[in-house]
């Protein structure tokens, strides 16, 4: 057995996950390879060392302060556009669709409005368009966030890729 193979199997060996044939070849290798023997004791040692980082004791009122937070957040006035949409009970898909319809509507209106020619980017229109584009972007973002926790996990592959979990090397 190669040292490299031996070390890969040592965790399974220590946790008793190996069949007896595997255990025997590791024991045989360790018997004649002091370096792997040292690695095995250090592997167990490092696992035990991690226990030195003790747990903390959370506050006893975690659950009640959670509910306080929920009712506090429910009482807070909904200032932004998104919380207002939430209050209206619009689904994100519907909100996204509405935003898109509004954007298309503004363009169409700007194009066909009498005496406006192609003044799509009059100050007011440009401002409205900007607001709607932002709403649209925010909606897409929020939808992604919301879907990520609806579990298990329609768009999780994408999310895990963002977080760097999607591939392994």
């Amino acid at each position, binding site marked *: 057995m190669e040292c490299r193979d031996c070390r*890969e199997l040592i965790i399974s060996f220590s946790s008793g996950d190996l069949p007896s044939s595997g255990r025997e070849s590791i024991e045989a290798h360790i018997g004649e390879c002091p370096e792997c023997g040292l690695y095995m004791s250090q592997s167990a040692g*490092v696992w035990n060392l991690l226990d030195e980082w003790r747990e*903390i004791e959370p506050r006893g009122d975690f659950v009640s302060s959670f509910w306080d937070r929920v009712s506090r957040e429910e009482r807070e006035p909904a200032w932004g556009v998104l919380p207002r949409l939430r209050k209206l009970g619009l689904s994100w898909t519907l909100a996204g669709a509405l935003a898109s319809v509004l954007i298309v509507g503004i363009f169409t209106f700007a194009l066909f409005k009498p005496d406006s020619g192609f003044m799509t980017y009059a100050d007011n229109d440009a401002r409205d368009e900007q607001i709607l584009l932002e709403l649209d972007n925010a909606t897409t973002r929020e939808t992604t966030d919301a879907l990520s926790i*609806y*579990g298990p996990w329609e768009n999780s*592959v994408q999310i895990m890729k963002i977080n760097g*979990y999607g591939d*392994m090397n």
Partner: protein
Amino acid sequence: MDIDIELMLRAKSGDDGAFSELMRRHYRGVVNYIYRYTNVKENSEDLAQEVFLRIYRSRKSYRPEAKFSTWLYKIATNVSLTHVKKKNANLSLDEIYDEGGEVGDPEIDVADDLIYRKEIKDVIFQAMESLPEREKVAIMLCKYEGLSYEEAARVLECTVGAVKTHVHRGRMKLIDRLKPYLPGGGEYGM
């Protein structure tokens, strides 16, 4: 039926008491997971509440397709990661170096057992911080949260074999970085 899934389904149908019970079963683990992930005790309860808040807000769309704990730790990982990134973005380079820089000279620390006791968690944190994210999360889930390789694989969305590899590689690096703290911490070749 799995008790967590049963509680979550009751919460879905409007039973807040069931959600409280669910939190009582898991908040200690989540708080400690976040604490070890961020190494900031003060924030960990707030962030743990954020985790449960996200679950609570999306309870209506809950589908019992996976073990609740894997969902929970996946959200806890995302919340912790976001917090760490946000925090690092607000730190100057010097501050980042101070907080998460090289592991100090342990030979000196070990000489004083009191300092060793006091600092060991920071040393472990820094060693864990230096691991690739997946190795760190795999070790935290398997070592500290007691998840099986199968459950950790679901959290990390990879195969069981990949989790074993992450744990193995991470452990080898930890041995290297924490060697002076290990009994008989000599050299070994590869």
